[in-house]
């Protein structure tokens, strides 16, 4: 009985995390899909990507966020979407840290393409770290403890 309750809590946590992260990604993609030119300007302001990649990123990154966000919410193709989600969040984290380290006070462009927000890099970094925690938890669940019902390379056969 106890084991059953534990399992239930674990499963709700897993599905909750998946849906929350999915909503975050879908929400993040919305404004950027509507305003690719403004988003390109934000990517340019990060001063990380070469010029040739700025517009391509502005065009495809929001759609990638929308796609994996939707997949996370629906709960299909989880290995693929959870994997990409981890990669994306870690890239964002590095970009934010890098620009904080060299003192660039720029708009995050995380959830909006507006330039006017007073930049608060600490908040952006902390927030992204929170998402990474959720995303890594899902990675462990999907790839290691096999919650999605997928055969895992890390689990022994019973």
């Amino acid at each position, binding site marked *: 009985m106890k084991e059953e309750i534990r399992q239930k809590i674990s499963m709700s946590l897993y599905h909750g995390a998946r849906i929350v992260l999915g909503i975050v990604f879908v929400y993040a993609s919305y404004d950027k899909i509507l305003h690719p030119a403004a988003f390109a300007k934000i990517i340019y302001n990060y001063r990380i990507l070469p010029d040739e990649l700025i517009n391509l990123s502005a065009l495809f990154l929001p759609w990638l966020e929308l796609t994996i966000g939707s997949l996370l919410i629906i709960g299909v193709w989880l290995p693929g979407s959870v994997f*990409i989600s981890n990669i994306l969040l870690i890239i964002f984290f590095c970009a934010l840290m890098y620009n904080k380290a060299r003192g660039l006070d*720029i708009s995050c462009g995380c959830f909006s393409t507006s330039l006017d927000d007073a930049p608060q890099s600490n908040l952006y970094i902390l927030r992204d770290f929170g998402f990474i925690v959720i995303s890594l938890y899902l990675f462990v669940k999907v790839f290691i403890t096999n919650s999605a019902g997928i055969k895992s390379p890390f689990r022994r056969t019973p």
Partner: protein
Amino acid sequence: MTFNSGQIWMKTIKQIFFIALIVLVAGFASNMLRSDKIPLVEDWSAKSNLVTSSGENLEISLAEASNLFKKGGGAFIDARSRAEYDAGHIKGAKSLPYKEADWKFVEAMDGISEDSALITYCDGETCELSMELAIFLRNTGYKNVKVLSNGWSVWKQNGLPVETGE
């Protein structure tokens, strides 16, 4: 023994491939259909904020700016608000907030000849006050106006001389 090792990774790779396909199609299609489409590749260097409409690049590097500072050959003009200026500015800089430039200009530029090298600055990568002020000053007759991008931040970080107060 692991159980069908590699199977989940094959699945993952396959899914990533299809996700990439969806994203490519959606991204291209949405850009084709929208009225304000953006070019796939754009020359951002030429689009720099620090290029005038006539194509002249007003940017000055920190090295050049600090050289001028050391030689005493240039005047620094702070385009930010007076309050930000008072809280800290490049040593010896004059305050000429862009938003008040029209009526503060005569007082602020008193004693600076039209031939002297001027360097405007504000704070933040996306701050456009310094560029606007530079264009304003050029229109009033100053020929040698440059912009130190993200000036206050880079100046401070490099430990160059600053001062506070009026």
